[in-house]
């Protein structure tokens, strides 16, 4: 498109002779260049709008890749199925409040450390960092265990799934509904079979919004998590569609 406009403009300029008035000589190239710039701006804007509309980074130029966490936490190792080398841990072991409260808490360092003081490689950088953050760690040089509460600090995890500030999403209500109505669960991973069950444990409904987290090396957002998705699911399953149900 731009090339055609440019070519046409150049052709037009070549045709001009001395009888052409001066304002045409000035204006036509200007319009040509202006048109090009406008087109470029519009296409950039359109790309941005498309990106915003889809709500997820487009899978081009590496935009879809998620970011690094301060400590690499492989969900595959912890929650992944045992056949694939994971531990098959329940989601609710760490995200303990998910079925009871509005938010699914990120566990405290203490919970990680309760296993990892003993379990896991002592060579791994991530685990060493975790032990330092828990306040009890091993000093290899002097070969002694240091208990230093000054070093204990929470890990600054980066949030992956974020809703806008004017939305109140309550995990417990959704988890309880879905675990009692398994037919409404979507994105069921291959290694979980919930066909024909009346009720499933809380840890098997997460995939509806979060995808198959157990098989993610780094967690990324699977669903757009936009209002359209919420409302569609609420209409399908008879949830409230009153604005004040979520916006207050």
């Amino acid at each position: 498109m731009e090339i055609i406009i440019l070519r046409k403009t150049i052709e037009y300029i070549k045709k001009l002779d001395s009888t052409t008035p001066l304002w045409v000589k000035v204006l036509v190239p200007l319009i040509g260049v202006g048109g090009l710039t406008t087109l470029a701006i519009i296409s950039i804007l359109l790309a941005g709008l498309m990106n915003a509309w889809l709500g997820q980074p487009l899978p081009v130029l590496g935009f879809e890749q998620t970011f690094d966490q301060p400590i690499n936490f492989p969900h595959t190792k912890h929650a992944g199925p045992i056949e694939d080398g994971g531990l098959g841990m329940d989601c609710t072991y760490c995200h303990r409040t998910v079925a009871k409260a509005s938010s699914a808490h990120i566990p405290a360092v203490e919970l990680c450390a309760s296993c990892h003081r003993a379990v896991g490689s002592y060579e791994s950088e991530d685990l060493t960092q975790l032990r330092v953050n828990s306040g009890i760690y091993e000093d290899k040089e002097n070969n002694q265990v240091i208990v230093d509460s000054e070093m204990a600090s929470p890990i600054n995890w980066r949030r992956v799934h974020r809703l806008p500030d004017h939305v109140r999403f309550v995990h417990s209500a959704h988890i309880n509904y879905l675990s009692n109505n398994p037919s409404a669960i979507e994105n069921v991973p291959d290694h979980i079979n919930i066909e024909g069950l009346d009720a499933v444990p809380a840890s098997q409904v997460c995939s509806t919004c979060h995808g198959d987290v157990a098989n993610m090396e780094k967690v990324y957002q699977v669903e757009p998590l936009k209002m359209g998705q919420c409302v569609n699911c609420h209409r399908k399953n008879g949830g409230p569609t009153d604005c004040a149900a979520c916006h207050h």
Partner: protein
Amino acid sequence: MVTEDKRSWGMVIDTDKCNGCSGCVTACQVENNIPLNDQNKFERGRVMSWIRIERYWEGEFPDVKARFIPILCQHCANAPCEPVCPVYATYHNDEGLNIQVYNRCVGTRYCANGCPYIVRFFNYWEPAWPEDLRNHLNPDVTIRSRGIMEKCSFCIQRIKRGSRKAKEENRELQDGEIKPACQEACSTNAIVFGDLNDPNSEVSKLSKSESDRKYTLMPQLNTDPNVVYLATIDPLKYKDLGEKAKSNEH
């Protein structure tokens, strides 16, 4: 149309019990993340308080009496604020609440101009709190940004929490289980909140009683408020009664 099984939230305020302590105002401020009112806001007349206590003086000195009326959003059934909104940001839901949808609001302020009770507040500034108070904000309530309207929601976050809890425990919602922040803070129990459609609730007993103390604010406007007031008892009216009782004792 409100069906029978639907709730209709309402409030009864006994002005005879109100002693004007402003506990409800403070509680509301804390519960609903309302920005602090400083001198600048008072001077400009842009104070935000979803519930306020209006004070009236009655009589001449030395027989002067202070009268207090807590005023909050009346959640009118015929709300004058609702039809004027061009973006449908304020509407009536099926639980009898007048809802303000913050993310829809574009800040035309028509609703505030239409409200006869002056209980709608416009955010002229981006809300700000002192650093110490940042972690005291209520996570269940949206922080309203600059340029949008806000008002009393009857503590809808508490209504939702209460209904959710009852649903999870598979039982009916009890009367008096849900208390807005103002009722919880009221030192004299002047505020009663509940379901007006439930004939056994305390609020419907009080609001449907034949008492001559019962009144609503500005009834001539036919707004049909969900907040009912009980008038102050005039001690002079019952003066003879008291003296009779005294003479009976002797």
